[in-house]
C-alpha cells in the first residue's frame, strides 16, 4: 500500500512540471472574474497562445499570492483593490501609470482599464427605498433602525464598511456579515434592508434594486484591469499583446449584460465570453459521468495522499507522546492549535510553500489529520493496563519489540478510529480545496453557490457525502480486519 503511494507521488511530480507550459490564467470566486478569465483565455487562443484557466480560486489574497509566486501568470483585478489592499505606499486615487510603476519592482505588469468601473455600491429594494425616500447614502443617517447585510470582505476591508460608516457618520447597529452570493436573497426576503453590491452586478435590475448615490465620493475607482507576470513579456509576448488589446473594449453595460447572461440566463461563462469576442466557444464536452470520475479522482488524491502522510508522521508522534509526558503535551498542544486554524486560512497559508492547486490542499489536509491520529495513538497506548506493559517488559523483550508486538496491536483499535475520524473530516474539508484550485467535489459546489444553482451544488455535495460514508464503512471493515480477534472478545470468568 505504502509503495503504491510513493509510486503515485513519483508519477505526479513530472505532470506538475509539465503543467508549466501553457499560460495559466486565474480568476476569483465570482462570476465577473470568471467571465474575464474566460475572455482572456479565449483572446489568447485567438492569438494562437495556449492558455488554461483555473477558475474560482477563492479571494484576492489567494490570487495575488499565486501571481507573485508564479503559480498563475495573469488574472483580472481592479485598481481599487490594488491601491487599498495589495500595494502599500500608493495613493488611494493612484492612476494606472502610477500603479504600473509600483508593480514593476514586484515583477508584475498591468493593462489599461478594460473599460468599466466595478465599484462598491450600497443597494436597497426599490420599494423600501422610495417608501423611506432614500436616494443617497447620506439619507441613511436619519434611519438608524435599518439593518445591513455586508459581505465578509466588505466588513473587514478598510475601504469597506468601517470607512464608509466613518465618512457618512452612519448610526446603524444591526450589521451582519453575509456571503455576497446570499446577500441578494437576504435583501429580497427582507431579512436585511441594505447590502453592498458591485455596480456591474446582474441582479440589480432583476431584483428591482436601487443603488444609492455615493454623494460623498467615498468608494474609490475599481477599474477592471488584468495583472500579469512581467516575465511573460519575454516568454509569451503574444499573450501580453492579446491582453493589452482587450483594454477599453468592455464597458459597464457590456459587463452587466455578460454577468446577467451567466447568472440569470444560465449560460456558460465560456459561451458568453466567446460571444463577446466573436469567436467560437471551445466545447468542454465532458458529460456528467466523466466529470464525476475526474472529480472523484481529484478528491481521492487529496484525501489519500494527505491521510497517508499524516498516518506516517502522526503514529510515531503518538508513540513519542505516550513515552514522554512533557513531549506528549507539547505535541498534543501543537496539533491542537493546528486544528483551530480555519480551513480557508490554512489553505492560504500553504500557498507560499506549495503554490496553488493540489499540493497546498494536501498539505493543509495533512496538518488537519494529525491531531485525531496523534491523540488516538496516544490514548490507545496510554490505555494499555500497566501490568500488561510490565509483563511484556518482564519477559525480557526489547523496547522496540514490545512496541511492535504488544503495544501497537493492543492500541490498534484506537489508532484506526483516529485515522477514520481524520479520513471522514478530510473528505469534507477537501471540498474547500476547490478555492485554491485543487478541484475535487468542491468545484461544482463553489460554482453552484456562485450561480445559485442547487443542481450543481448537489453534484458536488452528494458524491462527497457518499464518499464520506464509504470511507467510514471502509475503515470499519479495516478495523474489524486489523483488530485481533482476542481484542474483540469479552473476557469470561
Amino acid at each position, binding site marked *: 500500500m505504502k509503495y503504491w503511494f510513493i509510486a503515485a507521488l513519483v508519477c505526479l511530480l513530472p505532470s506538475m512540471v509539465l503543467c508549466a507550459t501553457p499560460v495559466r490564467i486565474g480568476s476569483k470566486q465570482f462570476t465577473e472574474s470568471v467571465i474575464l478569465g474566460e475572455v482572456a483565455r479565449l483572446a489568447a487562443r485567438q492569438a494562437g497562445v495556449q492558455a488554461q484557466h483555473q477558475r474560482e480560486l477563492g479571494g484576492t489574497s489567494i490570487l495575488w499570492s499565486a501571481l507573485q509566486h508564479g503559480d498563475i501568470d495573469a488574472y483580472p483585478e481592479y485598481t481599487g483593490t490594488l491601491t487599498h489592499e495589495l500595494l502599500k505606499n500608493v495613493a488611494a486615487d493612484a492612476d494606472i501609470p502610477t500603479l504600473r510603476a509600483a508593480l514593476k519592482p514586484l515583477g508584475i505588469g498591468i493593462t489599461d482599464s478594460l473599460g468599466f468601473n466595478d465599484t462598491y455600491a450600497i443597494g436597497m429594494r426599490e420599494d423600501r427605498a422610495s417608501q423611506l425616500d432614500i436616494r443617497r447614502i447620506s439619507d441613511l443617517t436619519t434611519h438608524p433602525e435599518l439593518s445591513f447585510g455586508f459581505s465578509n470582505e466588505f466588513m473587514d476591508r478598510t475601504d469597506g464598511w468601517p470607512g464608509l460608516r466613518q465618512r457618512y457618520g452612519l448610526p446603524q447597529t444591526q450589521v451582519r456579515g453575509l456571503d455576497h452570493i446570499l446577500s441578494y436573497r437576504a435583501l429580497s426576503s427582507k431579512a436585511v434592508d441594505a447590502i453592498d453590491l458591485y455596480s456591474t452586478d446582474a441582479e440589480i435590475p432583476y431584483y428591482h434594486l436601487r443603488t444609492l448615490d455615493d454623494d460623498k465620493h467615498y468608494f474609490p475607482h475599481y477599474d477592471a484591469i488584468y495583472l500579469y507576470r512581467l516575465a511573460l513579456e519575454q516568454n509569451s509576448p503574444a499573450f501580453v499583446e492579446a491582453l493589452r488589446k482587450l483594454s477599453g473594449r468592455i464597458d459597464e453595460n457590456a459587463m452587466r449584460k455578460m454577468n446577467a447572461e451567466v447568472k440569470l440566463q444560465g449560460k456558460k461563462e465560456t459561451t458568453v465570453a466567446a460571444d463577446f469576442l466573436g469567436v467560437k466557444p471551445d466545447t468542454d464536452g465532458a458529460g456528467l459521468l466523466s466529470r464525476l470520475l475526474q472529480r472523484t479522482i481529484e478528491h481521492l488524491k487529496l484525501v489519500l495522499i494527505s491521510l497517508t502522510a499524516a498516518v506516517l508522521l502522526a503514529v510515531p508522534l503518538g508513540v513519542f507522546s505516550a513515552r514522554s509526558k512533557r513531549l506528549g503535551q507539547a505535541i498534543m498542544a501543537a496539533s491542537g492549535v493546528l486544528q483551530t486554524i480555519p480551513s480557508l486560512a490554512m489553505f492560504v497559508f500553504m500557498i507560499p510553500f506549495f503554490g496553488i492547486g493540489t499540493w497546498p490542499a494536501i498539505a493543509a489536509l495533512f496538518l488537519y489529520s494529525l491531531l485525531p491520529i496523534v491523540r488516538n495513538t496516544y490514548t490507545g497506548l496510554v490505555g494499555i493496563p500497566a*501490568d*500488561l506493559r*510490565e*509483563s*511484556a*517488559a*518482564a*519477559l*525480557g*523483550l*526489547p523496547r522496540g*519489540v514490545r512496541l511492535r*508486538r*504488544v503495544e501497537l*496491536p*493492543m492500541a*490498534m483499535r484506537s489508532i484506526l478510529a483516529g485515522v477514520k475520524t481524520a479520513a471522514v473530516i478530510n473528505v469534507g474539508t477537501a471540498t474547500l480545496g476547490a478555492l485554491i484550485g485543487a478541484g475535487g467535489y468542491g468545484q461544482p459546489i463553489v460554482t453552484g453557490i456562485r450561480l445559485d444553482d442547487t443542481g450543481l451544488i448537489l453534484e458536488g455535495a452528494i458524491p462527497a457525502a457518499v464518499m464520506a460514508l464509504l470511507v467510514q464503512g471502509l475503515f470499519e471493515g479495516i478495523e474489524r480486519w486489523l483488530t*485481533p*480477534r*482476542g*481484542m474483540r*472478545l*469479552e*473476557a*469470561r*470468568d
Partner: protein
Amino acid sequence: MPANNSASLEAFELSCVSKRYGAVMALDNVSLSFPAGTTTSLIGSSGSGKSTLLRLLLGLEWPDQGQVKVDGEVLESEHVLELRRRVGYVIQDGGLFPHLTALGNLALLPSHLGWSRERVRQRAEELAALTHLPSGALERYPAELSGGQRQRVALMRGLMLNPDALLLDEPLGALDPIVRHELQDELKHIFDQLGKTVIVVTHDIAEAAWFAERIVLMRHGKVVQDGRLEDLRQRPVEPFVTHFVEAQRTLREPSV
C-alpha cells in the same frame, strides 16, 4: 546461573535496599538473600513492599539506595534483558496479552530469539502436560480461557526458556477457592519437580506455608521476621507477627 551450581550460591541478594514512591517508603533498608534452588514465600499485607521487592529483582524498578545482586553480580541496566529471560515472572491476573492466543503469548519471546515454530509448539506441549492445561486451550485467546487456565498459561510463559528462577506475584490471588486449592497443589508439585529458585508473593499465610518452608513476613517496607511457620507461631519477634498469623480465619466447630 548454571544449573549445576551448588545450593550455597545466592541466586538473589538485596543489601540495604531502600525504595521510595513519593512519601511512601516501599522498601526500607532491606537485606535479604535467596539461595539458588530454594523456595521462599514473601508475605505481608498489601503495601508491605513485597511486590516492589520482586520488581527490583527483575530490574523493573531500581533501588534508591543499596544493591541488588543476581547470581553474585550487581544488577545493571544493560544486562537486564538477559536477566529477565533467565527468570520467569507471573503476576496475579497472568498478564497475558489479549490480542494473542495462548500459544502466541508463549511464542512471543522464543520467536524473538529465533526459535522455530515447531520448537515453540513442542516446548508448549511439554509445559501443557506439566501444568495440566487441556489440549486445545493453546489455540484460544485469553478471553476464552478460564481464570485457572489463564494462570497455567502465564506460568507456562514464564517457563518457556526453562529459566533458573521463578518469581510469582500473588499468582492465585484472583481465582475462586476450588481452583485456587487445586492450583496450589499443582504449583507445589511443579516447584518440587523443577528444583528452581522460587519466590512466591502472597498474603495468605496458609498458602505461604504450603509452598515454602521459609517464610519472610514484611510490613511497611521492612522485614519483620524470616523463618519457618513454627518460628512465626512459637517465637514471634513482635506482636504483629502473632496478629498477622492469627488474622487468617480457620473453620472451627461451633463452640457453643
